[in-house]
C-alpha cells in the first residue's frame, strides 16, 4: 500500500493532463510556456477532424497549429493574443468553446434558460393542480368535520 501511496504522491507532482498527440520535438524548453501551450491547444479545434482539439489529433494540420501556438508564445504573446491571432487567421471555427457573441448567444443561454423554464413550468403546473383539486369546505361540511373530530385534544401517534 505504501508504494501505491508514493505513486499517487509522485503523480501529484507531475504535470496533470489528459491525452495528446504532441511529439517530443514540439515540446518547448520552458515548462511554464509548454503548460500554457498545452492548455491553449486543448481549446483549439483541429479543423480537418471531427471535434478533436489540436492537442488530441495526429493530423499534420494539428501539428502545424501546435507549432504555431508555441511560436506565438515564444514570441511573447499573451494567451488572449494567441487566440486572437488564430481566430483572425482561421475564423471562429478554430475555437472549441464558442465565444459569447450575437450569433452564439442562443447557444449559451439555452441550457440555463431551459432549466429555469422547466422548473418554473413544473412549479406553476403543480400549484395550479393543487389549487384545482382542493375545493374549500362548505360551512355545513365544516360543522360536520368539527362534530366528527370532537373536542379531543390532538393525539400523537
Amino acid at each position, binding site marked *: 500500500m505504501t508504494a501505491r501511496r*508514493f505513486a*499517487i504522491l509522485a503523480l501529484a507532482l507531475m504535470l*496533470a493532463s489528459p*491525452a495528446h*498527440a504532441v511529439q*517530443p520535438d514540439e515540446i518547448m524548453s520552458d515548462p511554464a510556456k509548454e503548460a500554457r501551450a498545452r492548455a491553449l491547444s486543448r481549446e483549439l479545434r483541429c479543423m480537418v477532424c471531427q471535434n478533436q482539439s489540436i492537442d488530441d489529433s495526429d493530423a499534420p494540420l494539428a501539428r502545424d497549429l501546435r507549432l504555431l501556438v508555441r511560436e506565438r508564445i515564444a514570441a511573447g504573446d499573451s494567451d488572449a493574443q494567441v487566440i486572437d491571432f488564430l481566430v483572425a487567421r482561421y475564423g471562429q471555427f478554430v475555437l472549441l468553446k*464558442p465565444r459569447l457573441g450575437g450569433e452564439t448567444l442562443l447557444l449559451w443561454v439555452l441550457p440555463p434558460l*431551459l432549466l429555469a423554464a422547466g422548473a418554473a413550468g413544473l412549479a406553476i403546473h403543480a400549484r395550479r393542480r393543487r389549487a384545482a*383539486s382542493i375545493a374549500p369546505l362548505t360551512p355545513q361540511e365544516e360543522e360536520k368535520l368539527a362534530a366528527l373530530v370532537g373536542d379531543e385534544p390532538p393525539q400523537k401517534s
Partner: protein
Amino acid sequence: MSPEVGHYSLILALTLALIQSVVPIVGARRNDAALMAVGTSTSLAQFAFALVAFGVLTVAYVASDFSVANVVENSHSLKPLLYKITGVWGNHEGSMLLWVLILALFGALVALFGANLPATLRANVLGVQAWIATAFYLFILGTSNPFLRIAPPPPEGQDLNPVLQDIGLAVHPPLLYLGYVGFSISFSFAVAALIEGRIDAAWARWVRPWTLVAWMFLTLGIAMGSYWAYYELGWGGWWFWDPVENASLMPWIAGTALLHSAVVMEKRSALKIWTLLLAILTFSLSLLGTFLVRSGVLTSVHSFATDPLRGVFILAILAVFIGGSLALYAWRAPALKQGGLFAPVSREGALVLNNLFLTTACATVFVGTLYPLALEALTGDKISVGAPFFNLTFGPLFVMLLVAVPFGPLLAWKRGDVLGAMQRLMAAGLAGLLGIAAAFAWTWGGPVLAPFGIGLAVFVIVGAFTDLAERSGFPRVGAGVAVRRLAGLPRSALGTAVAHAGLGVTLLGIVAETTWSSEQIVALKAGERVAIAGYELKLDGVVDRQGPNYREQVARFSVRRGGDEIGELAPSRRSFAARQTSTTEAALMTRGVSQLYASLGDSAPDGAIAVRIYHKPLVLLIWLGAVVMVCGGLLSLSDRRLRVGAPRPAKAAAMAQRAQAAE
C-alpha cells in the same frame, strides 16, 4: 447459396411487415381475436425472414462472394474470419440490415413473451412496430440494398477500414443497436396506448422491462465504444463529444428519464404526460441519431454514407414518425385522466426533478451538437462546439443531479421528509467528506475541484446503499438477519441501489483520470529509460513484423517498479497495404483499476522513436461503473412482479368455489 435468396427474404419480410401494419390494428379496433392473432404470427415470420437475409449476407462475407457489391467494397479474402463476420455490419448497408433485424427481433419477442398483455394492446404494439419496420425495409430496398450484384465479379475485395478491424469494435454496433432499436418498443407501446385511448399503471408495468433491456444494452454499447476509442485511437481519450457519440448519449439520457418516469407511473399512476412524451422522445432521438450518422451531414469515422438521397429518405422517416406521434399525442392527451397527487417534496417530486435535469441535459447535448449545423445553414458561419462547452453546461447539470440521487430512494411516496432523509444520509455524507479530505491530503497543491468530485462520487456510492441498509436493519440487527432481509427485498430495490452505485463508480473514474493522469512524451533510442508515476520503462528495442494483412513496427518496453521487473509493454504501428493507411496499437498494462498506457509516434531520422506514455489512475472504473449499472438493471429485471403475471381466471374461480364449499 445465392445472395438472391437473401434479397428475396428481405422483400418477403417487407410484405409481412405491410400485413402486420394493418391487420392487427384493424382487429384491435373491432375486437376480432383472429385478426389480432395475425400480428403474432407475422412478427415471428418477419423475424425469421430478416434473419435469413442477414444470414445470407454473412455467408456471402465469409465465403468472400465478390459478386455481391457490398462484399467487394468492404471485405478482403485475407481478412481473418472473425473480421469478415463483423465486417457485415461495418458498413452502411449491412448495419441497416442489422437494424431491421433487431427491430424484427424485438417484435418477435413481444409476440412470444407478451402473453400477459391484453390482446388489443399487443396487437397495436405489433402494428406500430410493423410501421417502423416497413419504413426501414423500404429504405433498405430503395436506397441501401446490400444484395446488389456486380458482374463480372472482381478478383479481390477492397480492404475494410483497418481502424474497424478490432474485437471491441466488432461488439460495439450490435450492442448499441440492441439499445437504440429496443427503444422502438417503448415507442410502440406509447403510440399503441394513444391509439387505444387508455394508459394506466398496468401499461407502465408492461413497458418497463422492455425499456430496461434496451437501456442496459445501450449502456453497454456506449461504454464499449468509449473503451474502444480509449485503447484504439492512440491517445488515451475516451469521450470527445463527437456528434456521433452525442447521438448515442441523447437516447441514453432520455431512456434513463423514461425508466424513472415509468416507475412513478407504475406505483402512483402519475407522470403520465412525462412518460408518454419521453417514450416518444427516446426513440425519436434514436432515429435522429441514425439520421446524423447515415446521412453524411457530419463526417466522422462512423459515417459510412455520404449519399444525399439516403439522408432525405431518413429525414422523411423522422418527420413522419416524430411528427405523427406528437400529433397523435396532441389529439389524445386531453383524454388522459389525472393521476395521483403528490407533494413537491416526495419520491415523485424527486423523480420529477430527476426528469427535469435529465431532459435539460439531453437538450443541452442536442443544442450543442446541432447548433453549428443550424448556424451554418442559416448564416453560413462556421463555429465549433466541443468539450469546453459541454464541460461548462452539461457538467454542472449532472453534478447537481448526482447530489440529489441518494435522496430519491429515501423519500416516501406522496409526501416525503427531506430532513429525515438527510439524517439517514449522514453516514454517506460523512463518507463523502472523508473522501474529500483524503483526496486533498494525497494531492495537496493539485487542482481544487477534483477532491470535491471524489467526495461526491463516494457520497453517491455510500448513499445508494443507505436505503438497503435501512431496509435490512443493518447494523441494528446482526449481519445474518440483515442478509436474509436483503434477500427478501424486492429485487428492484437491490437493482436501484446497485445501478446508482455504478453511477458513482463511473464518476470516481472520470474525476481521477481527468485530474491525476500523468504523461511523458519523449523520443527514445534502444536502451534508454523513462520514468513515470513510480514506474520505469526501458526501451529494449524496435522490431519489424509481418501480420496477416499489414506490416508492423513493434517497440518492446520492460516495465520496472521499485527496481523489480513487473512486465512488458509492446506498442506498435501497423500499416495496411490495401488501404494505404496506418494505425497505432497502444499497449496497456493494468495495475488494479489503473493503467499504464504506451503508444508510438514517428521514428526520427537518427533512429529514435517518439513514444507517449501515460499513467491513468482509476481509469477502468469509468467502464466498470457502466457494467455495475447494467448489473443493477439485471437485478431489477429479475424482480418477481415482472415474472409473475396477473392470476388466471381459472384459479380465481376455483378459489371462489372452495370458499363457497367451506361455508
